[in-house]
């Protein structure tokens, strides 16, 4: 059993092209982009996107810390 979903707090504006899109995409806001470089901590991100790292490189990665393994 699951919680049956939760309403997301999305403050961002909707896409101007929503009327042309499927329902599932319609419900999404535009993604938000933060353009500042920073030294990230687990408090301010959920995960990391980057070029594929090897399983060995993972051991010293920020993602491993966010996974609770670093």
């Amino acid at each position: 059993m699951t919680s049956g979903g939760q309403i997301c707090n999305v403050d961002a504006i909707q896409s101007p092209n929503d009327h042309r899109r499927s329902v599932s995409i319609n419900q999404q806001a535009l993604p938000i982009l933060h353009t500042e470089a920073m030294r990230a901590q687990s408090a301010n991100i959920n995960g990391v996107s980057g070029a594929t790292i090897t399983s060995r490189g993972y051991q010293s990665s920020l993602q491993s810390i966010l996974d609770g393994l670093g």
Partner: protein
Amino acid sequence: MTDALLTRNFVRTHTVMGTVASVHVHDVAEFGVINAAVDAVWTELDRLEAVFSTFHTTSVISRINRRELHLLDAGAELIEVLDACTWLEHVSRGAFRARRPGGAVIDPAGFVKGWATELAAKHLDRAGLQQWYLAVGGDIQTRGCTGAGEPWRFGIADPNSDDPRVVRAMVEVTGDAVATSGTAARGRHLWDGRDDQPAASLASMTVVGPHLTWADAFATAAFVMGTDGVDWVAGLEGYRALAVTSTGELVHRAAQWSAPLLHV
């Protein structure tokens, strides 16, 4: 059902495809339900690696490349992948290619990881889970939002930094996929399909959109196009790109993103 069986911050990792997969589930759900769904995700990723890996000599792809098996006898899944690769070669005007330089060896690796990850993630959907992300080697599919009701927030690794904790930007998504292609982590392994030269003008290319299959494939193709790739992705409805140049500049179309309302 007792409270002791419920969980809301479930994380597991799994080594697969030469990298590490991570799943974070924020649904309030029974531990056993989530765990069984994640078992199915890992099993699916392992199975797809065994079919498509060019590193395993026993994979279906390797057998085709040794002429031990004909393409048309390889099964619907392989035809689906090669069909998608052919379409990508067409729409990217040759920047994406599923063959090694020279043309003899089939290598759909630029497509398979994102496709396999999105396919494996369907086991989380089937279990009724609605708030999660699945990442395989830096390519991410999300559903819904975090347990706090906020968008999922991901750092874009700084491809020009040796410090793995430095991020060059951050994106926030609710249900979208985030994929990044670049040369930083494993050397120059991407070729420009048009001239067989290693692609070098950008440090990384990130694509955000509904499906990881396409976000990953478009990132791979757009990366070799250089900064032109940002405009190319903008023409693919629902998808947007963020390039990081070798000097650390960001290239993107501002109209395709929301600006953060609050300072982090």
